[in-house]
């Protein structure tokens, strides 16, 4: 193993390049034409263009990625998360080319791709699962009957989903068919499979997951738990480790469930077993297993001192688990919280935003880590995920971690594209969050689906700062009037429009 091609973009591609550097491996980035200047291209040792802006013709095109592998002489492929990371065809193409695939073999990925199939495997070893029903009969009556048998509210989920895409909660029978149709369309587009299933909605449940690692020699371990209950649109936005809702005995039980499941499926590499935890029954139900590194892996790294991406590479190279993971050396210490900074408008239904980041300052403080995919001058395009960065704080306990993260977000500056920073700040100061009283629909219930009303009244301090606004002596370093240097930079978002309430469906005259 000498040269690793990273079949991804954004912060995770940079994260993998850094792990390569620790191990003395060269890294190769790939990029679509929209990403020719992107930060992940600049942070790798080498980079190769793999096609036009549309992911389907670049990051998702197996042939183009394999061409890049051949061109650069990479001997190893790391898929990151999303894109081709859980694609068995891609894994097989890599392995068939005689290269090292950083992830479980296709024979392990495949069966876990089907969420209902994974649930069946969990049930086979006695794990509880959330009651659900496969929508294999597309007839309206069959769909309605399936939902009725589970009882409302239900959640419609794509069989091959990820990132909350296509998931929708349905509270009343009259909304079901439209929701199923929309979900099929999204699923078809996003995952090339319109298979759907229903799951009973568990009220005020928490999302708890367990990191696992497996080697190529049959050894598997869990690497402790994370909680990811703060979600919007069924997508995690704040994650932490450890989960503070459960007792040590419950934690041990959940971690053991994950260990048993990973052993049962013969897991290799890094993966995550996800559970829904019902605070009423205090029971964890198996949800699914993700066969890749997760967005939220840093909180585990920070509390355990374990570099999971380095571990992925070492395990893929054939090292035994016992050399990579020493349970006694990597006991969790303290508490870690991660926030995901998205280019999206929290005041406007969390809709993704695009444009040029005119000025970005990431925080930089002891016990704070930033995994950023963007910096000043970079462009957020409409073709790919709008996550700008993850900011992770560690503390001796949860309160300490919260205080450090609050301080870090104060120092965070994102100008030019509206992002979810204000709502992250608000959540970190919310009594429910501070007391740990959270569940997967908490954000919606507290802030509404349309998003919160934030930042409406700048205080005196802000008015003082206002004085800055005038054109003044020294030249402005950052100017929006410089000619667009990139074909996608004219996808500019007028932030004023959203703050003033001028948006879709609102009378433009206010």
């Amino acid at each position, binding site marked *: 193993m000498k040269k690793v091609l990273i079949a991804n973009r954004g912060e995770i591609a940079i994260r993998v390049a850094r792990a390569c550097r620790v191990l003395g491996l060269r890294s190769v980035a790939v990029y679509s034409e929209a990403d020719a200047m992107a930060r992940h291209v600049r942070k790798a040792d080498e980079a190769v263009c793999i096609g036009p802006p549309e992911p389907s013709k670049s990051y998702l095109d197996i042939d183009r990625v394999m061409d890049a592998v051949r061109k650069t002489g990479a001997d190893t492929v790391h898929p990151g998360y999303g894109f081709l990371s859980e694609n068995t065809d891609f894994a097989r193409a890599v392995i068939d080319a005689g290269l090292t695939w950083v992830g479980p073999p296709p024979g392990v990925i495949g069966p876990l791709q089907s969420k209902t199939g994974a649930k069946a495997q969990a049930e086979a070893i006695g794990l509880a699962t959330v009651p659900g029903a496969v929508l294999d009969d597309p007839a309206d009556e069959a769909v309605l009957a399936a939902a009725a048998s589970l009882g409302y509210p239900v959640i419609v989920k794509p069989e091959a989903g990820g990132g909350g895409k296509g998931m929708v909660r349905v509270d009343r029978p009259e909304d079901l068919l439209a929701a199923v149709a929309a979900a099929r369309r999204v699923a078809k587009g996003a995952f090339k499979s319109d298979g759907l299933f229903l799951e009973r909605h568990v009220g005020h449940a928490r999302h708890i997951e367990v990191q696992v690692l497996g080697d190529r020699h049959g050894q598997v371990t869990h690497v402790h738990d994370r909680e990811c209950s703060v979600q919007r649109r069924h997508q995690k936005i704040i994650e932490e480790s450890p989960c503070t809702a459960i007792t040590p005995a419950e934690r041990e039980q959940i971690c053991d469930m994950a260990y048993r499941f990973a052993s049962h499926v013969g897991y290799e590499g890094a993966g995550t077993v996800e559970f829904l935890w019902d605070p009423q029954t205090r029971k964890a139900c198996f949800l699914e297993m993700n066969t890749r590194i997760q967005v939220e892996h840093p909180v585990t790294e920070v509390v355990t001192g374990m570099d999971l991406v380095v571990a992925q590479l070492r395990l893929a190279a054939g090292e035994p688990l016992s050399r990579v993971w020493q349970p006694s050396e990597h006991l969790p210490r303290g508490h870690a919280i991660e926030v995901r900074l998205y280019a999206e408008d929290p005041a406007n239904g969390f809709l993704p935003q695009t444009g040029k980041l005119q000025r970005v300052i990431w925080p930089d403080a002891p016990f704070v880590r930033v995994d950023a995919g963007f910096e000043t001058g970079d462009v957020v395009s409409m073709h790919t995920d709008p996550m700008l960065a993850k900011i992770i704080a560690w503390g001796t306990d949860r309160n300490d971690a919260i205080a450090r993260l609050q301080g870090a977000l104060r120092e965070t500056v994102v100008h030019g594209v509206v992002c979810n920073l204000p709502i992250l700040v608000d959540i970190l100061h919310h009594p429910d969050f501070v007391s740990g009283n959270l569940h997967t629909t908490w954000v919606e219930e507290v802030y509404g689906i349309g998003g919160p009303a934030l*930042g*409406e009244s700048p205080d005196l301090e802000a*008015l003082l700062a*206002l004085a800055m606004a005038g054109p003044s002596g020294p030249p402005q370093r950052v100017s929006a009037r410089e000619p667009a240097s990139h074909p996608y930079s004219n996808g500019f978002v007028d932030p004023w429009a959203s703050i003033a309430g001028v948006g879709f469906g609102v009378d433009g005259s206010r």
Partner: protein
Amino acid sequence: MTIWLETPAGHRVEVLTTPGPEGTRTVVRAGGGDVLVREVMLRQAPNGDWMVESGGVTRTVQVTEDRDVIWLSDPGATDPRSATVVLRKVMSRPSGPPADRHLCTPMTGRVVSVAVKPGEQVRRGQALVVVEAMKMEHVVRAPWDGTVERLACHVGLIVETGGELLVLDRAQAS
């Protein structure tokens, strides 16, 4: 030089700047120019930060001009939720807000379906156009009862945030 700015809450303030050797003297007034909010000296640091001095005490803020808005961050703000505010230049704004009746897309994306035709009557809440970006769909619904006067989009069109989708006349006295 004088400019007027509007805060997110809709307050208007006058900003008068006078460059000088020590920095730029800046006076901020509100209430139609009658109320002195603050008088400060401004200097720009090499990294682009602005240093605001008042009464011998200096604070540092980040400011970015971007077309007709000004992004302003103050890490030392008493309320961290308003550490970043976006101010609108009200006098120098090149064009007015989009005219009445024009429905726009709130995000950049591709139009994946158009459910209405010109001349069609629609009810408030009815789905008109679906825009998709990053595999997420956004349904544009009618904000009032009315008639589709004109379509400004078609399936497959890439629309940018704020771009017009269609013109929807208000229903007459319905």
